[in-house]
């Protein structure tokens, strides 16, 4: 459940502050106690993270329909993907979704965060902007499905009120992905803004004072102080939001079920569809391995960028 993971930089370096230099205190008793303390979490880890990861890999080389015995098919599932138009379409739809979602969301989040930093730090304002994030995807999806209804939704009532044509937000191929992407921007922008805001709070106030003494405008200070110093935090925030964005499912499942046609059949919905509607479990597992690989590459590249930026900063 990575969604609420408030930015968690893997700080393995700080994992042992007490260090080995400290006096060893009854290590054998500690080990026995530690085993007891860690046993439930270890059980959970092995049973629901480690084992299913291995099993998922294994199934990606099998053909399995939930009933008959799994049959080893080598790399067939992977080679099948190459010629699977629905798969490539799902990839394309997902990428389009991620691009719109992330670009709009990040720009808005930075804007909100800077406003929070420079104008007000009120807890009330911060609470309001983060509120949508605490509401479930399903509720948000239904709410916007109603507000964006082609006939009697309020948004289209406003649009037709201005003398324009109503927009079938969820009903037309060209509109559906941007619509879903923007609905999720609404849900996530405040949360993302708070992550960015936390990063902004680490920028020393003195820099802005110095900037003011030099007569720099707020606009100038944003580009010369805020943004460069924010880059490492922004990269980390992007790792979280991009990986989350690739796994969009709930909104699609509740509103369009992948339609119209395959226009909103994102990769995770396709995996769900393959496994539970078409009962092609092995193939679904293979597609999920590919999704996993993509996310790993994205995270790796972004974290490398972060590190490069950090050396920049010092």
């Amino acid at each position, binding site marked *: 459940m990575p969604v609420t993971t408030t930015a968690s930089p893997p700080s393995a370096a700080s994992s042992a502050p007490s260090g080995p230099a400290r006096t060893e205190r009854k290590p054998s008793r500690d080990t026995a106690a530690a085993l007891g303390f860690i046993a439930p979490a270890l059980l959970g880890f092995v049973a629901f993270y480690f084992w299913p990861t291995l099993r998922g890999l294994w199934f990606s080389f099998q053909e399995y329909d939930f009933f008959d015995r799994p049959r080893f098919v080598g790399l067939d599932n992977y080679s099948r993907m190459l010629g699977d138009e629905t798969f490539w379409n799902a990839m394309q739809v997902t990428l389009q979704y991620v691009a719109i979602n992330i670009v709009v969301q990040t720009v808005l989040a930075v804007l909100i965060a800077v406003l929070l930093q420079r104008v007000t730090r009120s807890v009330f304002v911060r609470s309001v*902007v*983060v509120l949508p994030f605490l*509401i479930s995807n399903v509720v948000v999806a239904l709410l916007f499905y109603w507000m964006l209804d082609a006939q009697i939704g309020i948004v289209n009532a406003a649009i037709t009120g201005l003398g324009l044509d109503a927009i079938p937000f969820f009903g037309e191929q060209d509109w559906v992905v941007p619509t879903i992407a923007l609905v999720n921007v609404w849900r996530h922008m405040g949360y993302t803004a708070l992550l960015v805001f936390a990063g902004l709070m680490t920028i020393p106030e003195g820099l802005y004072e110095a900037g003011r003494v030099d007569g720099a405008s707020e606009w100038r200070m944003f580009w010369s102080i805020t943004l460069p110093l924010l880059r490492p935090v922004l990269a980390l925030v992007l790792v979280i939001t991009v990986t989350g964005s690739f796994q969009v499912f709930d909104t699609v499942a509740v509103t369009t079920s992948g339609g119209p046609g395959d226009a909103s059949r994102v990769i995770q919905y396709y995996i769900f569809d393959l496994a539970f509607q078409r009962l092609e479990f092995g193939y679904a597992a293979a597609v999920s391995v590919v999704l996993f690989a993509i996310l790993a590459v994205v995270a790796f590249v972004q974290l490398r960028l972060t590190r490069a930026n950090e050396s920049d900063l010092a």
Partner: protein
Amino acid sequence: MSVQTPVEPAAAGPTRATAAPVQKAPKDRRAGIGRVVAWATLVLIMLVTLFPFYWMLRTALSNGTQLATDPSSPLPVGFTFGAFERVLGLSTTAEAQAQGGSGAAIDFWLYLLNSLLVATLITAGQVFFGAMAAYAFARLRWPGRDAVFFVFLTALMVPPIFTQLPNFLLMRDLGLLNTYAAIVLPFFFMTPFAVFFLRQFFLGIPREVEEAAVLDGAGTVRRFFRVIAPMASGPLITLAILQYIQAWNEYFWPLLVASDRSVRVLTVGLGIFRSQTPQGTPDWAGLMAATLMAALPIVVLFAVFSRRIVDSIGFSGIK
């Protein structure tokens, strides 16, 4: 916006120091205008954030059959509590249908109870077992500790969909499909986030505190429950709130393993409610009443703990 500032000498010029007093007045005015624009933007963002919630309420208080007559009315159309009544099962089938409901039972109370039960169990398990593991990682010395912790952390990187397909099979093979156990178990013993989050706080508690307890002859278990856990009660509560909200909002996993009516949670129930479209148009008023009530516990929780939640988002607690 630059229209308002007529004379704006290049601030970087060599006469900067002497020009400062002269420059002061227009600069302040510009800063003032900038503040107004900034506040206006912020208010606009808050309105965009809050309006959908108002619209949810406005629709829920409307009469379903009259909604189409005035789609842009800012107030409820044909004000009634009918939508809430039919969602809560307080109205007869005829009454419900008269207001645009499907007449089918929605079982809101059942789903609500299921959601409460499942979210509570998940939260309790995660926080308790997560705290135990975090304590072992932060405070006890044992061989392989850092390696095991690193392996735990990698679980943060695995996308849920990847493990959920095999986990579904596991639940099926254990004969647990459509039980509470199936919804709860994968999140019950640990999530990497809970362990990671709490470990950071435990690391920050001064070692001397525990050493005093050691001198008193307290064992590991006693130190954990009597010393560490009370000192970390703040982070424990914060984690509990965050994980409760998360569990309450979970959709994909319960949809996979517990779509059966008797164990259906609210999110899954809402999804099904949406697909029950009686005469072509969905029962929007009923749907909005249901979503409103489904979101209400979270909104209340948030209203009570907003500062705690807001402060927990970010890097501060994690560093």
